[in-house]
């Protein structure tokens, strides 16, 4: 376990050391600030729903950039062999890097906490709903990070990692549209598999165990496949 955290903290340090993270954070918070203020000024409602929906789109666009270098970066810098020959398991590597990206995500989400505080100053928002909405957003972001990490494990080229991560996330986002072509009951299956359809309940304030299971199993699946990819790298 300690090795896992060692990898995680090393990765996290490199996140905060590189200007990329700050650029992403700056753009992220500025965009969210604009969305929040504009939506609030127009609707005058004490809710985070609009902002968090936009946040999902921002996640789609920024998480590939955040995860592309996790494994592909090691390979492009030729430090992968050193990592593989250290006394760490493949699982440690994958989970450690995932933890780092997840913590950075939590940092980004944390910067949005100023919004519910503003809502509370001016109105009476439903804090339970805010809580579940954040839970949904974090699960969504965590899922995107897992996909990004998986894509990063497939290649040594950062751009390829970023684009394939984006492509995969977009595919899962758009599954309901594909499903509509086939009609029920297949469309229901596609809708279940879509990554956004499980946000609805949480955004409204309803915790459904099926949604939680979906996200956790998605993340688990991606991480498992990523561990397998790292294993393959050992052969070479």
């Amino acid at each position, binding site marked *: 376990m300690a090795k896992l955290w060692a990898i995680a903290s090393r990765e996290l340090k490199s996140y905060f050391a590189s200007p990329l993270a700050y650029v992403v954070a700056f753009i992220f918070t500025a965009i969210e600030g604009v969305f929040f203020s504009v939506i609030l000024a127009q609707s005058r409602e004490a809710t985070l729903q609009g902002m968090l929906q936009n946040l999902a789109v921002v996640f789609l666009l920024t998480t590939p950039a955040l995860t592309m270098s996790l494994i592909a970066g090691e390979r492009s810098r030729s430090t992968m062999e050193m990592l593989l020959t250290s006394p760490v398991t493949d699982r440690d590597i994958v989970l450690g890097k995932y933890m780092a990206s997840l913590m950075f995500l939590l940092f980004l989400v944390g910067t949005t906490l100023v919004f519910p505080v503003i809502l509370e100053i001016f*109105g009476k928002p439903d804090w*339970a709903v805010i809580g579940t909405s954040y839970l949904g957003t974090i699960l969504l972001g965590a899922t995107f990070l897992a996909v990004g990490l998986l894509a990063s494990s497939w290649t040594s080229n950062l751009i390829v990692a970023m684009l394939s991560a984006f492509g995969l996330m977009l595919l899962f986002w758009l599954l309901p549209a594909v499903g509509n072509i086939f009609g029920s009951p297949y469309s229901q299956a596609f809708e279940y598999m879509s990554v956004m359809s499980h946000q609805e309940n949480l955004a409204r304030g309803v*915790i459904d165990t*099926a949604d939680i*299971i979906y996200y956790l199993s998605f993340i688990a699946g991606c991480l498992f*496949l990523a561990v397998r990819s790292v294993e393959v790298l050992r052969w070479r």
Partner: protein
Amino acid sequence: MQTQDNQRAALFDKVVLGLGILGIVLLAAALGGSYLPKYVPAKVALYLRYAGWVTVGLYVLATAWQNRGWIADVSRQRRARSGANSVAAVAVVLALLGFGNYFGAKYHKRIDVTENKKFSLSDQTKKVLKELKEDLTVTAFVSNNDHRFQGMNRQIKDLWDQYAYLSPRIKFKIVDVDRDPSVARKFEVTRYGTVFIQRGEGKKIEVQGTSEQDATSAILKATQDTQKVVYFVQGHGEADPESHEEPGMGQAKSSLEKQNYQVKKLSLLTEKQVPADAAVVIVAAPKKPFYPQELDKLGAFVKQGGRLYAMLAPQEGDTGFEKWLTKYGVTVRKDVVIDPQQFHPYSGYGEMAPVVHRYPYHETTQRLAATFFPLSRSVSALEQLPEGVSVSPLVETSEFAWGETNLKGQAKQDAADAKGPLKLAMAATLTPPASASPTALVAKESRVVVFGNTSFATNQFILGGGNGDLFLNALNWLTEQSALVSIPSKDTAPKTIDFQNGQVEAVFFTTVAGVPLGLVFLGGFVWWRRRSA
């Protein structure tokens, strides 16, 4: 020897190749045949397809046999074995995750954490569902192919999923009208989005609307064996339940029907007595005098356990009805209630439309929203109640109200006027005396509700505030259908915020400039630290 082996091998190769080609030809023929049903019957196309796949399968096996040497060599390598293990492991894990999701979706649990539980069903519905004794089949007929209905389809599904989740007796099915038109025809479905409830093989009740109230009412309709009848007395200028004009009560009628009541009109002159199937008799704002025999018939009805819903209104003259009501312990004053502090601002009657916020008295008014009563008379209990009569108030004004008795001229509170707080509605219960005639049937309790106002239940005002709920709650108390006490619709709009001047801009600058710049400074700080370290 070698030549013979070579010849056999060459022949085998040709056979394998032939198999491959044949397989492809068969499959192509099957595909082509499926598009030309006129020339190629479906059965033939099906057999062609089977034959094609079998042939292709044989081809694959034959090719594998041909290359068995290569396969053996590769399998021997470690990479292949680990690769195969990997593939197997991945397949197993993905299958596990898939099953996990399948069962997770099937046996899921919902927790609604919103403040007013707006995504859960109300307690009344939960009670109704718990008391279900038989299975109910709920069938929704929708179109999954038309995008316009997606929102409605989702509403129906969300709502009835919750019902099915709460009660195993509710079996919910969605039928795609376009795919199964025969089922839709059997149910005589005419519109997309129709939902039917059926108890066993019994009558199919159609659910009107997609709200929780509509659904629960329909469930009650489906589970009740007899329908109760509500009669509106006519002949004295009373409000007309068939009318949709402002003073009419057509709206009240349809809300009664949604609650599984049948609504009929009653003329006390032409009928010998109040019909036996009457559950409640409503008298709504009579303007002309009653004949004595009419009042006698009403009295006889109430005496044998009948339920009376009396609604009056301020007017000149006397109908004799108010005096008759005193035998139930309630007097209705000849006044107009004025409340200068709590009145409805938009009813058009100004201070003569008192608003009531608090209901400290009766169970039927417990969770009621604010109600208002344009043009109302005050009611009160008699000092000396008749034997067997108990009375309790339903609705009471604020203490600032008074009952103006001077119906002409300026309205001013004086000694003749009753002082607030004034009661606007009373509920009376009559228990028959123990010394009933020996031949009488089992004595039943009678109930009478007297309102000093009718307009709250007319089309003009019944949809405002809690008026509709009050109307139904009082009626349900009369018929002792406490389960049907109406379900207040949940407030689904989020709270709104009022901003002062400059606050919106402050928020904008803080969030768009403040926080991001703060992060830039943080980054700069970290970078500076690293440089100097």
